[in-house]
């Protein structure tokens, strides 16, 4: 995938790039898809990224004119994110306000390209970042009409932090170094897709533990999981116990026959109070 393969109103893409000049065409394409749907556009980047966006190109050629008309806002990264003391709730307020203003101004929504590399390089910021990405994902799915591409510059971001951030996006572009699973908000709960195996189970558990979930029953749709091994099942069981400790109950939905059989063989039906539902039930 070297251009966004899907473009929908609630997109939440993670894009890993190597330099500003190779990223600019991807950003332009993502924004152009929004423009075609009548959305307001917002580009958040560093000076190099903003400069690359303004270079002549065939897709979205008239950046200066779009900015002049107020269709496209170009914001330096420290104007949109308070790096150093990142606050997910304030950040959400920022985007919620911007999206509502866009809709009030007659646009169908807000489409954002944000180079969030500076956030990801904050020391110890992995948990905050993952939490933010989860909140944002929920907001994109259920909020007033925002979609976003979160871009990370490889080489500047610790691979472990990059992997954690990539894992919480429903759509990921990165040639390597990303986990084989993804977790995102979907239909009132969380969904997971891909592979949950021994090599990434601890990581999956960290992502699940950092997820912003509430309510007495937390649903996790596993119907798009391609493969899960004993360590992956154990990560789910550990999350179920962690939820149980705060009086929430995990409900695994969309499980296969083998999933249910394995859950039982491993004894997790006895060790957790998780509800395990078959696909289609």
């Amino acid at each position, binding site marked *: 995938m070297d251009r966004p393969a899907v473009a929908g109103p609630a997109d939440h893409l993670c894009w890993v790039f190597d330099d500003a000049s190779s990223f600019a065409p991807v950003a332009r394409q993502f924004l152009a898809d929004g423009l075609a749907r009548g959305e307001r556009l917002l580009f958040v980047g560093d000076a190099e990224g903003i400069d690359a966006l303004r270079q002549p190109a065939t897709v979205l050629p008239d950046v200066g004119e779009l900015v002049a008309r107020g269709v496209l806002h170009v914001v330096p990264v420290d104007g949109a994110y308070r790096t150093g003391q990142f606050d997910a709730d304030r950040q959400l307020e920022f985007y919620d306000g911007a999206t509502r203003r866009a809709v009030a101004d007659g646009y169908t929504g807000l489409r954002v390209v944000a180079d969030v590399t500076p956030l990801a390089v904050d020391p110890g910021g992995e948990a905050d970042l993952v939490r933010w990405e989860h909140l944002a994902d929920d907001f994109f799915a259920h909020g007033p009409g925002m979609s976003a591409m979160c871009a990370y510059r490889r080489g500047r971001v610790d691979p472990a932090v990059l992997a954690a951030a990539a894992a919480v996006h429903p759509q990921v572009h990165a040639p390597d170094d990303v986990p084989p699973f993804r977790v995102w908000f979907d239909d009132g709960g969380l969904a997971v897709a891909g592979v949950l195996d021994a090599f990434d189970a601890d990581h999956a558990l960290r992502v699940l533990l950092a997820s912003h979930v509430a309510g007495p029953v937390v649903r996790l749709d596993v119907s798009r999981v391609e*493969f899960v091994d004993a360590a992956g099942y154990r990560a789910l069981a550990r999350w179920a116990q962690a939820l149980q400790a705060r009086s929430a109950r995990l409900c695994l939905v969309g499980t296969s026959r083998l999933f249910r059989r394995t859950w039982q063989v491993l004894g997790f039906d006895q060790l957790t109070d998780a509800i395990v539902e078959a696909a289609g039930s």
Partner: protein
Amino acid sequence: MTASTVAARPAARFEHSAHFYGDDHEFLAGVVPFVREGLAADDAVVVVEPARRLTLLREALADDAAAVQFHDMAAVGANPARILAVWQEIVAQQVAAGRTLRGVGEPAFVGRREPELLECHLHELLLNHAFDSGAPWRLLCPYDEQGLPPAVCDGARATHPAWSGATGQVHGPAVPGTAVQAAFSAPLPAPPRTPQRGRSYRTGDLPAVRQLVAENARSWGLSGERVEALVLAASELATNSVRHGGGEGALSAWRDFGGGVLEFTDGGHLTDPLAGRRAPSKDLAGGRGLYLVNQLCDLVQLRSSPAGTTVRVTTWL
């Protein structure tokens, strides 16, 4: 010494004996008194036999059968590596209930295939290894001398310190403690000289291993959940190689004895011969992979020595 005087005293330790029989009459002549003496002593009596023997025994025990717990060996012990956890759970239940246990178990029943009988031999040795230092109980293992290959019955005389049969009671030499490690580290019989498919694997190759196993499984005519289960088992075994077996391993696949075979080899040394045979711990600690493989697969043959580890998984087709 007669059977009844042996049984009059409570078991002092794990007493593991074999009973050799030539026909139904001799089977019942050994097993029925053993069961009745247990009932008379208020022992919990649990019988794990293939279905035909269960029927025979139920009829012979008549009303006494109601006090006996019966399990179908061909179901709970289809893969011989699953049987030990069954006994372990039964022993734990009876210890918790404050009762003595008397078990009858026929792992090596007639109809088992050659590689299964080999695993039954290792299983009998592992019973000694697992229970010798634990709570006292008695286990009687019937062997069909007419239906089984003579080597299997000779093997049973080497895995049981005592046995009975048409010629009476025999107390053999104690089974040496080294026998388990010897059997556990002995190489498996060489694969047949049929074309083999395979590959080596290391970190990062797990998706390719899973794909290769799925292709093999489908080429054997398996489908749906059986393919998925075999892929899961294979992934656990290849992961063990990568994580604990020196970082790499090799997979080969072939057909033999009416089954599809996958074999995983690596340079690691698994020192615990009971690995994967005990029921998993009651917390969320790791180490459930081999146990899961044993539960999912029809036959699992695990051997390990300082020279390396081999796990051969057979799916009956």
